[in-house]
């Protein structure tokens, strides 16, 4: 008999994340893949894989989160805000402020002592200050996302990129390149612009609490370091940061 207690899936704009947890909330199996626009097919395929890995039956509840959550048949649909909070609290067991920079939006969540959402901030309607912003601009600079740390100049050497609007920033970068600015200096400028944007959201939550980070952008050490610089406080990147939302969704299975 399988120990699988619930399955959480997080269908984001950039990647599909899913995991199966046991009755203690421990991850038994997981999948992370680039998002396919055919959400239903991808979900069916990956769910079948997860179930095969863990022996989970079709009776095991499936909790869906992320932007694609309404597209799939699930036992429950819960927002990413609640799921990231649950996933974070499961790991840390303490109150804090969680920064989740996803592909489409950025959230700053104030987590209370009992692991509930006390308050949250999200970016505005556009992709300013999100993973997508980083992706688009770094692509323009021909810097692979996972190697950005090796391609940025030192602190104080970055050029100023004033816009965090993805479209405007891209044209700003084009003109900086045309003016002969160093690619490394522009890359740092871009990361600093994103950090400024995120810290303006984080500025609205209490200062004394520890900072945690989840979401795909947390895998990027250079970005985390620049964000910590901008906030003037250390940031703890959660284990397997991309999976925090799906894990939190699975943990919502009992409620």
């Amino acid at each position: 008999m399988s120990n699988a207690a619930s399955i959480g899936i997080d269908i984001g704009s950039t990647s599909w994340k899913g995991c199966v947890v046991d009755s203690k909330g421990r991850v038994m199996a997981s999948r992370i893949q680039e998002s396919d626009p055919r959400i239903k097919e991808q979900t069916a395929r990956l769910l079948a894989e997860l179930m095969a890995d863990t022996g989970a039956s079709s009776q095991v509840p499936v909790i869906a989160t992320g932007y694609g959550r309404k597209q799939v048949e699930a036992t429950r649909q819960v927002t990413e805000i609640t799921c990231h909070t649950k996933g974070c609290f499961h790991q840390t067991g303490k109150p804090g402020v969680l920064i989740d920079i996803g592909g489409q939006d950025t959230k700053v969540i104030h987590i209370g002592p009992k692991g509930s959402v006390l308050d949250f901030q999200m970016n505005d309607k556009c992709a300013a200050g999100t993973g997508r912003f980083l992706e688009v601009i770094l692509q323009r600079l021909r810097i692979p996302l996972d190697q950005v740390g090796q391609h940025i100049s030192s602190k104080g050497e970055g050029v100023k990129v004033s816009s965090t609007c993805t479209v405007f920033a891209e044209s700003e970068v084009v003109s900086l390149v045309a003016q002969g600015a160093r690619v490394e200096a522009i890359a740092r400028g871009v990361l600093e612009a994103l950090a400024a944007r995120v810290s303006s959201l984080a500025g609205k939550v209490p200062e004394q609490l520890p900072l945690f980070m989840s979401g795909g952008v947390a895998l990027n050490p250079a970005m985390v370091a620049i964000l910590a610089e901008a906030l003037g406080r250390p940031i703890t990147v959660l284990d397997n940061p991309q999976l925090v939302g799906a894990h939190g969704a699975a943990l919502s299975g009992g409620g």
Partner: protein
Amino acid sequence: MMLRRMQYEFMKNAGGTFLTGLQRYQAFKKRGKRGARPPFGPPLESVERLKEIMTRYYFTGRYADGAVPVAWVTSGFPSEALVALGYHLVYPENHAALCGARRKGGKMCGAAEEFGYPRDICSYVRTDLGSLLSKKTPVGRLPKPDLLCCCTNICQTVLYWYRALAKHLDVPLVIIDTPFIYGEAPTHHLEYVRGQLDQFIEVAERIGGKKLSPEHFVDTVKKAQRASSLWGECLATGKAKPSPWSAIDSFFHIAPVVTIRGSDECVDYYQMLLNELTERARKGVGAIDNERHRLLWDNLPIWFLVRDLALATAERGFQFVCATYSNAWAEAGSQIDPSTPLDSTARTYTSVYLNRDLDNRTRSLIQLARDFDADGAVLHSDRSCKPYSVGQVDVRNRLMEEEGIRAMLLEADHNDERSFSKEQALTRLQAFMEAFDE
């Protein structure tokens, strides 16, 4: 003129009634008998009457110009004298809201933008100018005005909006300038507004070709005051648990007190609505099946989203029980004193919700939340209405820190769905609601 007047009266009395009867029959055939549709409770019976009144109002309007004097007025304009002088009134804001609720706001805003009106202007303004310039409206036709009447008590944008209308339509414009109130209105402000009222009435008499009869004026003021008071009583029934109707319902039922206040029909309507709501409250009939949390709404409705909003909240047992927007109409009109009609009109219309300082407004909002026992608040940060949205972050903090009421800002636009991201907004709202049950 005579023929046109006969046609107008016929349409008002016979044509309008026939049309609304036909509409009702068609709706009945399409939908079958009205019953409760979970998660909502049984619908309000008065809705049929409301539709009838508003259909007749817009239908009659098509035949008004050339028959009776016509004025286009801002929602906060002291319109009682115009009603007493026999004007047919058009409220462009109401018309824009109607376009918005039918999801035509974005398209009409786009039409205004084609004529050079930038996207930063209020979407009511763009909807109406777009409608005027593209000659398209879901109500068939709006009558051409003889007079434009603008009162700055709701915002300063109306000033520029009505100047643009005056230019496009080539008709005279009356402006009533109401100084912004910090604390209490000083006497010289009220005298200043009162002076403008006197001048406005002279202009309205001249253009309408008729002298204002003091008795008729007082009678109209009394009816307007009565309708506003009844409106307030209707809203107050929402204090019952469960609330017999929602603030979202009130966004629609507000239409008569805006457009036809001062008439018997308006008073009768709110008396009917009040009777129904009182009865529902007495029997414990709620607007939704399972009212677990009670929310306050701040700012204008998001007209194109009201149905989604009602469903998203009702499904989770959340109910909007009060709204500063609906309440503003009860707060103001009910204070007119028919024994001093002009002085009290000056005071009332100068002291409307949006013409008062933030501290005053916050106090009034908090009192509303307390009176209706709200445990949550959604503050619509309206891209198109800055006077209403400024200060909401402070309001939110005060609600949370001083009152222990959870509050969120919902970024949207009241009429332009192009300036809005539905998925993100509804996710935000859902996360806000999830936090109540953690």
